[in-house]
Each structure stands twice: as C-alpha cells, then as structure tokens.
C-alpha cells in the first residue's frame, strides 16, 4: 500500500493532469446516456468516441491528406515569408533609431489589430484560395518576429559593441559577432509566438477565404452540422500547435536559461 502511495507521490503531476483529461472525456461520453438532451442540442452533440473514430477515418482518407497538404503549404510559405522579412527589417530597426521611430506607429497598429480584420480586404486582393490564407499567415507571424528581433537587437550590451568596435570591426562583423548571437533567444521566443499565430491564421484564413485546406473542411462541416469533423479538426490543430510550440520552447529554454519564466501564449 505504502509503495503505491509513494509511487503516486512521485508521479502526482502527470497522474492528476491526465486523470482530469480522461475524467472529462468519460463524463462527456456518458452525458447522452444519463440525460436526454433537448432536441435542439442533440443535433449538435457528439461524443469523444465519435470524434476519435472520425479522426481515424480522416487519417486514411486521401481527400483529407490533400487538404492537409494545402494547409501545411500555406503555413510553411506564410511563416517562411514572415521570417525572411522580419529578421532583416528587425535588425535594421534595432540599429537605426530614426527608422525605428518612423516604423513604430505602423508596427504597433498592425500588431495590436487582429489580422482577421484585414481578411475581407485580403480576399478581395488575392482572391479566394490559398494565397489569401498565406497572406493572413504572413501578417500574423510577421509582427511577433519583427518586434522580438528588434527588442533583441536593442537590448545588446553597449560594452560588447564598443569592445568589438575598438578592435576595428565593421558594421557587418559587429552584426555577426555580437548582434545576432545576442538577439537569438529573443528571435526564438518570437518564433514561438509566430508559430501559434500562423496556425491560427491558417484556420481563420481557410475558414472565410478558401475552398481548400483543413480549416475549410471544418467550416464546411460546421455549415452542415457535421459536428465530429469540426472537433476532429480542432484536435488536429491543437496537437500540431502544442507539438510545435513545445519544440520551440525547448530550444528557447536551452538558449536562454537566464531569462525569467514567461507566460504561456498561443
């Protein structure tokens, strides 16, 4: 008995965490067996078992694989573009005060505004399809990356800069030796935020501005009240988002052990 108790003590965290999730799923599963749902609600009700079965069914369907491929492409292109733009612009903004002061109102405004606001315009400009979603992903991922790169460059130790300068380094060498390594933890932290926003961008963009992709599948299913597909998609995006942000978080923790703990964001 005591042995079990001490085993429980050692693994209390995962036991309680997983236990609650399992309990939640069980309660959900058994609700329709215990109470009779009102007619309106019964139409939109599904249980974890059905969702799981749907996920398995979807994972073998070639049509779903195609939609997944579309979503993944949008994610990669959008995020890639935002990295390609944010890093150089962030570095330059961090190095030149005047440029930074000029760009700041735009960066603040676009960062504060949910990118969904631009969606009708983006659809008008780029058409209904994958490019609209790419642009939404790009706008969403750009600003966290840009701002973090810029903060990283700005928070550089002046002493290090002066030392390297005194030894005759030019601007390019300064970038390579001091600026980039020093801002790397910030950039990675920005990347974590950007990934979360990019995944949301894929969902939202496809929801309203596309006829392909997993987000579109969910939107179409929701329109026809096929609830288990909506939840299956939700779980898929959740899993991808968790895996990717945790992977980047690991990298981030390795690179910046000295920084204080940050609050979760997606």
């Amino acid at each position, binding site marked *: 008995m005591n042995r079990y108790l001490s085993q429980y003590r050692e693994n*209390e*965290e995962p036991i*309680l*965490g*997983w*236990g*609650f*999730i399992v309990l*939640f799923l069980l309660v959900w599963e058994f609700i329709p067996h215990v109470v009779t749902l009102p007619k309106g609600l019964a139409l*939109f009700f599904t249980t974890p078992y059905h969702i799981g079965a749907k996920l398995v069914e979807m994972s073998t369907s070639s049509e779903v694989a195609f939609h997944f491929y579309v979503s993944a492409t949008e994610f990669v292109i959008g995020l890639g573009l935002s990295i390609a733009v944010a890093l150089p612009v962030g570095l330059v903004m961090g190095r030149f*005060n005047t440029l930074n*002061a*000029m*760009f*700041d*109102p*735009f960066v*603040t*405004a*676009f*960062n*504060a*505004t*949910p990118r*969904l*606001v*631009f*969606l*009708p*315009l983006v659809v*008008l*400009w780029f058409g209904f399809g994958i490019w609209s979603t790419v642009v939404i992903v790009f706008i969403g991922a750009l600003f*966290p990356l840009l*701002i973090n790169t810029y*903060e990283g460059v700005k*928070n550089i130790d002046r002493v290090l800069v002066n030392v390297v300068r005194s030894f005759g380094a030019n601007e390019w060498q300064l970038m390579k030796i001091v600026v980039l390594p020093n801002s790397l933890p910030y950039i990675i*932290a*920005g990347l974590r935020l950007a990934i*979360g926003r990019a*995944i*949301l961008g894929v*969902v*939202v963009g496809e*929801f309203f501005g596309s006829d392909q992709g997993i987000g579109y599948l969910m*939107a179409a299913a*929701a*329109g026809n*009240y096929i*609830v288990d597909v*909506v939840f299956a998609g*939700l779980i898929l*995006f*959740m899993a991808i*988002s968790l895996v990717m942000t945790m992977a980047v978080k690991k990298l981030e923790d390795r690179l910046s052990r000295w920084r204080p*703990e*940050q*609050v*979760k*964001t*997606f």
Partner: protein
Amino acid sequence: MGFKGLSESSVRFLLGAGAVAGFFLVWEFLLTYVFVFNPFFITKPSLMWGATGDLILSGELWKDIYVSGTPFVFGFAAAVVIGIPVGVVMGWRRRVAFTLDPFLTALYASPLVALAPLLIVMFGVGVKGKTILIFLLAVFPFIFNAFAGVRSVDNLLINVVRSLGGKERDLYFKVILPSTLPYLVAGARIAIGRGIVGIIVGEFYAASEGIGHALIWFGDMYQLAHMFVCILVLMIIAVIFTQGLRKAELAIAPWRTQETR
C-alpha cells in the same frame, strides 16, 4: 538625432506622426497622379475622409460599435470574473494546477474560433452567442496570467504575513493580488485582441449589424472607402486599448519594462 531643443521622446513622436502622415499623402498622390485608380480594388484617403463623414453623420458607425460592444463587454467581464479566480487558485494550490494545467493548455492551444458556427446555431445570432464566443477566447489569457502572477509571488512576503498572524484572506488580498496585478493587465491586453477576433468571427458568420458585419458588407458591396474606414476604426480601437493597458502595466509595475508585446 540632430534636433536641438527637443527631447528624444518628442523627436520620436514627430518622426512617427510624420511617417503616418507621409504614408497617407504618398498613397493619395500615387493613386491620383501615378497609377490608374480602380475603385473596385483600392480606395484613396480623400474618399475615405468622405466615407468617414458619411458613417458618422448617419449614425451608423456609433450604432455598429454599440451593437458589437455590448457582447464584448459581457464576454470580457465574464472572462475576468471566472478566469482570474481559476488562475489564482491554480497558482496557489499545487494539486489544482497539476490537475487543470494540461487540460486548459490544450484548450488554449486549440483554435476555438472554429466553434463559432456551432455556438451561433446553438445560441442565436444575437448577444448570447457572441458573448459566449468572446468569453471562450478571452478567458485563457486571464487564467494563465493570473496563474503565472501568483507563482511569481515572493515567498518571503508570504512568510512575513504568516508570521505576523495573517489569515488566508490576508494572503490573498495583501500579497497575492498586488503582485499579480501587472500580470493581469498583461493578460487583459492579450484578451482584448482575442475578444475582437471573437466579435468579428461571430459577425462574419451571421449578423445583420455590428462593426464586423459592416466590414464584410461594405466589402461585398465594393464600397471600399467605407470598408477601409471600418478597418481603420477597428485598428484605432485595438491600439487605444492595448496601448492604454501597456501604459497601465508600466504604471503599476515599472520594473517589468522588458517584455514581449
């Protein structure tokens, strides 16, 4: 920077304001003299000015903001009232945190906007459906920031209160709440953005009024000047709230200046 007699912050402000003004001027100039102006593709600042007057004088803008603002206030208030206590208890009671953290993290990570169509069919296109959607999106930043805030509380302060005979209540109100406050303001900043997403998604789907509906309706009607004004209004609202909360955050906790936005 070589502007004599001006402080650095006012130079920054002038440069920023100049860049914004320059942006609109260049936009107007390019479409008037350089490129062929296609009113079904883009609009001009001068036309937007007219549209702004139009929307304000007809009272449409205020009505839309009021219609969208009501569920926002309800949903946001519910998120505060429920999110903060949950987060505080999670931060304070280790076992509660173990139990709820993975579950809530999973929910936070999932794109709950996708539930919008279901919520709207279940609860209607009115205030109720949108309120629930906004609550769902805005509650998690409050939970996780309250959680992190409570965990950041200095143990020494807790011991002091305990040694001097403070009760559980004193701990909550005299130590935990004050040190958690800056985290909560930061959480509110994130929650505002997510709440705006909630409004817009809800209104894109099914609504006959509200700022999100106006946005998409003007887009469908190719009234681009009106549509741009709606976008600008939403941007201004978002900036006012987030910058205001940022200022509040700095005022409450000036030591926490370095943080990702």
